[in-house]
């Protein structure tokens, strides 16, 4: 398969005011990965682990602090805006927050029509927009309604309809179905899959719902504290999780109590970020950061537990 995206030591730092003075937040920490053309690449991980930042950085809505991004072999970090703009048109994002993503003063039909590529006449565009609404389970009669007249889940679906109607080639889907009940969620997921096959789309699909990732993603990356803890084929990563954090995430469910009943927000600055909560922690984990290493064919993990001589640490 063709490599579409290649991320090389991609990092993003933010500086904020803390309780005791300036503080640094590492939203992305040396992220390295490849995304193949035509695949759905899933991203899961804790709230605040950098998933949204990753998606936004890839399509240059956020400038990385360091590292490089390659798209189809050309480096887009540092690319001049004039050149990048050609690419931008084929990139889309469904923002995590549909409320802020939609223009409150524009009827949803117009918002969708805006994205439909030139060529079609106004009447045709309007018809297509109505059809898009129908595909996401909204009555086409509502085409002239404004964003505030919709429910949370309806707004989310309008955002999906708008993004998909631009015929993108790459799309970041940031929790696109988080507000939807199961049956409508399934409808939208099936739509994503259908359009992917039709348009040869590639998705970066962010979700905290493991069941959804299992269903939709070919491969998946698990993020923790701005780093990729583990990545590989979805079946392998979720079926046979190797990183202790992934194990925790996969085992957690509302039907089963997890081992940690505390919310794991305590991230270690030094060493492995998961070391404070990790049940398998060793001395080395508190000192050094584990790098991503191949654990088996096409399955990478950043954990000292998978170095040959772990027993000695």
């Amino acid at each position, binding site marked *: 398969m063709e490599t579409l995206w290649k991320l090389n030591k991609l990092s993003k730092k933010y500086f904020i005011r803390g309780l005791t003075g300036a503080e640094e937040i590492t939203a992305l920490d040396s992220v390295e990965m490849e995304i193949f053309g035509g695949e759905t690449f899933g991203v899961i991980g804790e709230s605040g682990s950098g998933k949204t930042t990753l998606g936004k950085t890839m399509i240059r809505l956020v400038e990385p602090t360091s590292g490089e991004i390659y798209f189809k072999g050309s480096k887009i970090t540092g690319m001049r805006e004039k050149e990048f703009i050609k690419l931008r048109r084929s990139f889309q994002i469904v923002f995590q927050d549909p409320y802020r993503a939609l223009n409150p003063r524009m009827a949803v039909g117009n918002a969708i029509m805006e994205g439909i590529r030139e060529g079609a006449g106004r009447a045709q565009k309007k018809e297509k927009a109505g059809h898009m609404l129908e595909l996401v389970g909204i009555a086409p009669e509502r085409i002239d309604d404004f964003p505030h007249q919709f429910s949370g889940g309806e707004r989310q679906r309008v955002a999906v309809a708008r993004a998909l109607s631009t015929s993108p080639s790459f799309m970041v889907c940031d929790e696109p179905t988080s507000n939807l009940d199961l049956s409508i969620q399934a409808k939208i997921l099936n739509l994503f899959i259908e359009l992917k096959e039709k348009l040869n789309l590639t998705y970066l699909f962010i979700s905290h719902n493991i069941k959804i990732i299992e269903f939709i993603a070919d491969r998946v990356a698990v993020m923790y504290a701005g780093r990729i803890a583990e990545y590989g084929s979805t079946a392998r990563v979720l079926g046979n999780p190797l990183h202790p954090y992934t194990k925790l*995430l996969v085992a957690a469910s509302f039907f089963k109590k997890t081992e940690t009943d505390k919310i794991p927000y305590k991230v270690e600055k030094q060493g492995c970020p998961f070391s404070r909560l990790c049940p398998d922690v060793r001395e080395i984990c508190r000192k050094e950061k584990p790098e991503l290493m191949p654990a088996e064919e096409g399955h990478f993990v950043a954990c000292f537990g998978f170095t040959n001589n772990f027993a000695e640490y």
Partner: protein
Amino acid sequence: MEKMLEIKKLEVSFRPAVGESVKILRGVNLSVGKNESLALAGESGSGKTVTARAVMKLLPNNMNFEKGEILIRDRNVMNLKEQEFRKIRGKDVSMIFQEPSSYLNPVFTAGSQVLEAVKGDGPGRKERTIKLLNEVGLKENVFYQYPHQLSGGMQQRVMIAMALINNPGLLIADEPTTALDVTTAYGIVELLKEMMEKHGLSMLFITHDISLAVNFANMIAVMYAGRIVELAGAGEILNSPLHPYTEMLVSCLPEKYKSGDKIKTIEGKVPDFRDLPKGCSFHPRCPYKKEICLREEPGEMKRGEGIVRCFKYGDFVEA
């Protein structure tokens, strides 16, 4: 038992730019007992948020109360003046809103907004705020961050902290964990349970996630097209749903199928309030429909502790 919240035959409508007003809530009956949690589930667009906003007296400008009663601690609040209700809002009853960014003010820090929500002054407000931020899994530095500097799930948790800061008696939580990963969501649910135990919190918990609802609600109400179509214990909803819509919804649960299966959907047209089908509003999608379903609207039939609105269970017609 003492009731924390009681909604009786609530009707709410909206005025479209052109044409006649359209009913959204069509006679909603609900009640939450003291120290109880009731989950409100149902299809996207069925009227869950409108119900919640009606209780908070925060309906959008283009919406009207038509009929019905809302009682908070046995006190009818329908006719309370805004000035009066403001004393209740945030303290007796508070709400976690579905889309945090629409309620968080972009120009104030998260900390100052939570502080602002604290009723009454007195010492230790800041400490209390920071402690609560910690309890929802946020670091202290979030106190000084602006909403746009926070991730989606972090904003949601700031909203949760804001709603809990005054130890409200009744909490209306509108999809409070949608932006959270399971472990973090689990922590929030534990925190809410703890508040129920320690502070006698009662809750109306709106969620599309049935497995979450089952986990900690005593009763689940299922809404369809502006009405409660079924109310039953959490276990009953999961294992022996009565209403055909509930049955379909539950059959979509990921727990019910193995990976590799195609995810199920509920086929058919989603109802449009401007043009609701005659008779039972679910009939166009219902596999059990009979002749009467196309003509009449099913009324509320008692079933054990709960209710169901469906002619499968008797020909009780809505008055």
